[in-house]
């Protein structure tokens, strides 16, 4: 589904990702861990098409297409979803209306008719129930004044509505309290199936207890320095990153 080949990329001429290769198949969940500043969010932004980030060399193939050729919106329409580490606030744009526009953009792209607010509300309500979300998420403006945890929940709500084929969740667990984490993780698990794939960026084993990864990768200084199964996350939790970086 996704093939990253020797990706070198960064920001304003500075190389942050220094040769990343990663292969992800349908139905798989990959966790990416690594110290602060190692390049995890940079990778997520490159995958989602942030215009401020540059690719110096390498390839990203998604479903047989060159992902890097697509605009951010086309990547979304092609089924790539990015759950931001720091979702931005959009004051003045009602959240339910925003979600409906995003949903409709997808329908139009598939050649279908747009949904009116009433019909969309049924879909929205179902997803909100799934994630245990209160009505205020409909009434308020998008992320405007939301707490850190509320913003993360709102990201997962968007994921539930857009039903992406490939989701990249950047530290969705940070900021969630233990109950919210369980609900969100359950929601993500319900959305998961053999046809989609998930990249989870996280610092905490805790999330991986709920969403079981098939692979764990450790990113350090812009490189994947170790890959393994879910037991790798336990080792990291117990020993920190030092044992990996010092031997590297």
């Amino acid at each position, binding site marked *: 589904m996704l093939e990253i080949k020797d990706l070198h990329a960064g920001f304003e001429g500075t190389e942050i990702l220094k040769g990343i290769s990663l292969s992800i198949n349908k139905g798989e969940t990959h966790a990416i861990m690594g110290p602060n500043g190692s390049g995890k969010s940079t990778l997520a932004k490159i995958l989602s098409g942030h215009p401020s980030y540059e690719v110096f060399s390498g390839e990203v193939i998604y479903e047989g297409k060159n992902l890097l050729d697509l*605009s951010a*919106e086309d990547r*979304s329409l092609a089924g790539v979803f990015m759950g931001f580490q720091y979702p931005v606030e959009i004051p*003045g744009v009602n959240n339910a209306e*925003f979600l409906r526009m995003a949903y409709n953009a997808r329908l139009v792209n598939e050649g279908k008719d747009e949904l009116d607010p009433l019909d969309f509300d049924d879909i929205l309500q179902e997803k909100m129930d799934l994630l245990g979300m209160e009505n205020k998420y409909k009434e308020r403006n998008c992320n405007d004044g939301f707490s850190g945890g509320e913003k993360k929940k709102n990201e997962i709500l968007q994921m539930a509505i*857009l039903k992406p084929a490939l989701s990249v969740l950047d530290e969705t667990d940070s900021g969630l309290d233990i109950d919210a984490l369980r609900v969100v993780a359950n929601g993500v698990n319900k959305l998961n199936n053999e046809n989609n794939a998930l990249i989870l960026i996280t610092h905490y084993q805790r999330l991986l207890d709920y969403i079981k990864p098939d692979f764990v990768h450790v990113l350090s200084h812009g490189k994947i320095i170790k890959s393994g199964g879910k037991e790798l996350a336990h080792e990291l939790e117990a020993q920190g990153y030092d044992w990996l970086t010092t031997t590297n």
Partner: protein
Amino acid sequence: MSSTIAESSNGAESAVLDLHKKFIETNQPSPDFLALNRKALGQFAKLKFPHRKHEMYTFVNTKGLASAPFSLKKESSIQREFVEQHVYAGCERSHLTLVDGVLRPELSDATALGTAVMVGSLAEAIKDKSVKSLLQESIESENDVFASINSAFMTQGIMIRVGRDNQIEAPLQILNVSTGGESGPVMTVPRVYVHLEPLSELKLIVKYVGEGDNYFVNSVQDMVVEENATLTHIQVQADSIDAWHFSKNRVRLKRDSRYLGYQATNGARLVRHHNEGWLSEPGAELVLNGVSVLVDDEQSHQFIRVHHEVENCTSHQCFKNIINHRARASFDGTVVVNKGAQLTSSDQLINNLMLSDEGHADCKPNLMIFADDVKCAHGATVGQLDEGQLFYLRTRGLSEDVAKEILTQSFARSIIQEIPFAPVVEELNQTLLKKLEAN
């Protein structure tokens, strides 16, 4: 069409003086009114048209306006359907239509207002000494040359007076229609005097539209809000695109009174709002919000002076401009807090959203504080759309154009939604926000 003038060799000022002579001959104002007209003309001659560095016109080039060979409109005809189109829902029986500045009873209907509101001509109203002296005083102390022209050429004017302790349910609309000049530019001088007696309330909506081009609507509103009264004043500028639109509001606020002002500007060749408010007794509150959406070569300028004369008064200002293409906007606003005006609370916020490189926004927010125990804040921004927000929307599958449209519309909507009259909100969602649609 009489009294056409050309720019005389003595400059634009003498052209106005000439025009005034013809105006007096044709209109033959009553002696009392004539005295006011003359006084204003004297003030005009003192003030003169602004030169380039005039402090009240720092950002506004009035050269083309001052030198345009204006004439005065004599007869205008207008279709009833045109008026009906522009009367807001809820104002069907509470609207006054001014065509080229003159009240047209046959196109007006004030029956819903009942007897609590007195509507008449200013020419009549000045028989009341207090009305006359207030007019006189504002003419003598006039600081704006264009407003002095309004006073020099005003004929009937409108007086609206709400009696003590009357809270008027029906919103009152004043519809200003300009029919324009066929053979050259015309000037019209709508003049309204609003007086709210203690404990009364009125919602006044003033809309400006054009049914022709090539006109200068030069309007002045005097407003007095007495003890514990509330005046809501909504202005919608929707003139023809090649019009000049100047509007001056003077608000005097007494003890515990409120003035809630909202100004929506669709833009035109040159729009200038001049707002001046005096919080002259404790407990008075003034709110002034504005939104403009300007495209092509449209211009809109705000000039504001708020005077906190005594303690315990509040003023809020919030203005948002969206500027595209080669459009220009400016804001020149000063809040003066007099010595002794302790516990004043005042804020002023101006946000300009620039959608093009050629657009232009000038900002001069200013505080002059002579008291020590006050809470004042002001801020001004000029910026583009937020890259982070744009990207966020795009990652949800919305095209760049649609994302921009959503963000610009939400910028304007934050002011539009505050307007306490639903038909205007709906209208602006159609007109102002339409100007921001991705095509």
